[in-house]
């Protein structure tokens, strides 16, 4: 079983991110851990400075982003999200590491890159739904909004500001200009942060259920941006850093990679849920399938399309043709089995952050759709077999009828003709007694042959049926060795095949009555009952008939069933035997 997933991205060109081996990630992980150790080392080991909790928490942010990012990258190589997160983590290392390097250049670069992480962190939050790729035109503008205060104004500010270190960019030391620039920088940054939060909030507001789930980490991220903005605003207003806000910001930053990892990597498909899924979908009837799949995927807008193998296209549940193409926010999972297309699921593209779920649901859908298809096929085949059985019986009947007619119009007529000729001959033989005797013997033999031939023809096909079932059954009843009465309640004739089957059933049943039942009387009943034509032979004999007493009935049961009817034998010991054939009967 294979499943093809297509996403909105697949049509677009993208350079491959996958193909990195375990070694690649191991090296990056080692680098990240080394960076983390280097960042934390002075905070913990510096004997001169007291250990600052807030610094340690901030120090941990880089490592946690890097590790979470690497895990995500490894797990979802087709998504840039992991890359962005890893980059964010490494960007967090830059500033504390440069801080540990002495020298003017290191100080200047540190001053310039202190907020570098913003340029990875914000895109990370904005592109959770598009797997790390910027799709919306607003996203680059937001980055520009960050770049103005954090890059452009930072450079200009450093040209005026006298810092505690050796600022290589300082050209025109002027505290007033620097102060104004600093306030402008902070104001613009607050605006950019607010704009980002608003964008994320609007997206959340508009998102479908599955997309909201995927957007959860960006909500956590937006909260940190909000905290960051609050911190800056507090700085601006009070001129002092707020220690509690700093704590909240640092801690909320830490929740982002955790929320991300939990949201991104924990498949929504626990073991138990998988079993439930297959139980609910695998056995779902076609009309229950879509709701069950929608529930399992958490996508109420899920659409199911079915593959029509005869016309080679997809149709909806209503049978109308459906275009199955990924586009916009919709992704397509094609449901196949053994290379044969069965159908397709059109689901929310954001669900691709959980491919295991999509694959499991698609697999379950494959089973359900295939089951439905097999069921339909089986029913069609059954109908074919029934039709073919009917045709076989009909062909057999036609052949019997033809044989009987040939006998009647051929041999029987000829023999009668010869009998007549013999009689004419006898008239001419005159008084020769030996000749008379010869002719008489021949005549008797001929009469015997005719009688035998008549019985044979009747066994092949009862010509009397051409005069109606009633006449035929009347004939059977009067000929039966056990006194038999006929209760015939039908007013309209039955289909020819049904009449023939009914006739044979009655003959066989009466033959069995004569052979085994020790009955004093038998009754043939023909009536219409509840949309059925019912033909019954009941005797007052010993009952207790078993299968071996009616091997001929088995063949008749086939004949009756070929006409969609049923043959039943009830034979309680001491009560008598009832053989009943029921045929569907339109009116």
């Amino acid at each position: 079983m294979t499943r093809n997933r297509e996403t909105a991205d697949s049509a677009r060109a993208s350079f491959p991110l996958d193909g990195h081996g375990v070694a690649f990630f191991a090296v990056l992980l080692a680098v990240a851990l080394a960076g983390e150790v280097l960042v934390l080392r002075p905070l913990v080991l510096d004997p001169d400075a007291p250990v600052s909790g807030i610094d340690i928490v901030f120090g941990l942010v880089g490592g946690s982003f890097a590790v979470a990012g690497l895990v995500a990258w490894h797990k979802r190589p087709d998504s840039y999200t992991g890359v962005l997160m890893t980059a964010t983590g490494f960007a967090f290392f830059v500033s504390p590491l440069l801080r540990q390097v002495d020298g003017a250049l290191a100080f200047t670069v540190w001053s310039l890159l202190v907020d570098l992480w913003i340029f990875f962190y914000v895109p990370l939050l904005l592109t959770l739904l598009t797997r790390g790729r910027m799709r919306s035109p607003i996203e680059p503008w937001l980055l520009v909004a960050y770049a103005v205060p954090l890059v452009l104004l930072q450079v200009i500010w450093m040209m005026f500001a006298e810092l505690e270190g050796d600022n290589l960019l300082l050209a025109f030391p002027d505290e007033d200009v620097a102060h104004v620039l600093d306030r402008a920088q902070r104001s613009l940054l607050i605006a950019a942060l607010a704009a980002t939060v608003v964008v994320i909030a609007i997206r959340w507001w508009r998102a479908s259920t599955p997309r909201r789930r995927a957007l959860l980490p960006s909500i956590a991220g937006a909260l940190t941006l909000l905290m960051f903005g609050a911190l800056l605003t507090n700085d601006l207003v009070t001129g002092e850093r707020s220690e509690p806000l700093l704590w909240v910001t640092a801690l909320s930053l830490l929740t982002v990679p955790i929320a991300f990892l939990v949201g991104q990597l924990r498949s929504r498909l626990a073991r138990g849920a998988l079993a439930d899924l297959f139980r609910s979908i695998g056995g779902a009837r076609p009309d229950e399938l879509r709701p069950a799949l929608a529930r399992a995927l958490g996508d109420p807008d899920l659409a199911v399309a079915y593959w029509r193998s005869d016309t080679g296209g997809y149709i909806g549940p209503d049978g109308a043709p459906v275009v199955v193409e990924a586009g916009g926010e919709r992704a397509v999972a094609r449901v196949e089995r053994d290379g044969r297309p069965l159908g397709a699921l059109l689901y929310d593209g954001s669900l691709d952050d959980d491919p295991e779920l999509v694959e499991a649901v698609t697999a379950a859908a494959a089973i359900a759709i295939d089951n439905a298809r097999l069921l339909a096929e089986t029913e069609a085949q059954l109908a074919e077999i029934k039709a073919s059985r009917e045709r076989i019986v009909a062909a057999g009947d036609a052949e019997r009828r033809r044989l009987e007619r040939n006998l009647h119009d051929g041999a029987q007529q000829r023999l009668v003709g010869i009998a007549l000729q013999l009689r004419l001959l006898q008239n001419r033989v005159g008084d020769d007694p030996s000749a008379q005797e010869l002719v008489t013997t021949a005549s008797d033999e001929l009469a015997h042959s005719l009688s035998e031939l008549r019985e044979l023809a009747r066994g092949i096909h009862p010509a009397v049926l051409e005069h109606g079932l009633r006449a035929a059954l009347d004939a059977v009843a009067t000929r039966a060795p056990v006194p038999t009465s006929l209760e015939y309640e039908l007013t309209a004739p039955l289909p020819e095949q049904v009449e023939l089957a009914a006739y044979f059933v009655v003959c066989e049943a009466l033959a069995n009555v004569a052979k085994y039942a020790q009955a004093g009387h038998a009754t043939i009943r023909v009536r219409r009952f509840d949309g059925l034509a019912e033909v019954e032979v009941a005797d007052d004999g010993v009952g207790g008939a078993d299968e071996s007493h009616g091997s001929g009935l088995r063949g008749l049961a086939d004949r009756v069933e070929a006409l969609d009817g049923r043959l039943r034998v009830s034979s309680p010991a001491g009560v008598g035997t009832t053989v009943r054939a029921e045929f569907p009967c339109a009116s």
Partner: protein
Amino acid sequence: MRIVIADDNLLVRRGIAALLEEAGIDVAAQAGDMDELLAAVDAAPPDVAIVDIRMPPTHTDEGLRAAHAIRERHPGVGIVVLSQHVETGIAARVLAEHPAGLGYLLKDRVTDVAEFVSTLRHVAAGGTALDPQVISRLLAGDRAEGPLRDLTEREREVLQLVAEGHSNPAIAERLEITRRSTEKHVSSIFTKLGLPDTGSENRRVLAVLTLLRG
């Protein structure tokens, strides 16, 4: 007595004609199917039409339909339906409405020419004649129901011969009893079957009908 014979088998048709002619019967026409038969009857209505029950095109009950048509157009024409096999159910259909002047016999019966000619005359006179095989099945053993149950063994024998189309003298001769006792049996049968006194020949026909209807 003028006869028309209808049978699609030439050998049979000619055989019957030859036998009857030898017996002094006037075979006016021979027909191979229903249309020829009706044309011949229309042209010159015979005393009796001998009709094979199965004729072209469907070989099912053309003979019966032809009989029906003749009965409608020429009520006075007696009809003897011949068949390769006789069935009680078909007999009931043949004689259903107007059994007078009708006969239903196994085709082989023709070979007993004297008997057959007597049957023809009986039918021509408005009598009813059933094949002995049909009657014996109807009267067989304890099968008989309704009023037939009350008949004595001897009365059954008499009824059988009445149904075959025999006259009282013929019955007396066959059963080797006196004509008088034959008449007594016949009138007892009529009484037991509850047949109204509407003339001897008509009562005989009604007796056959009662027999057929069980």
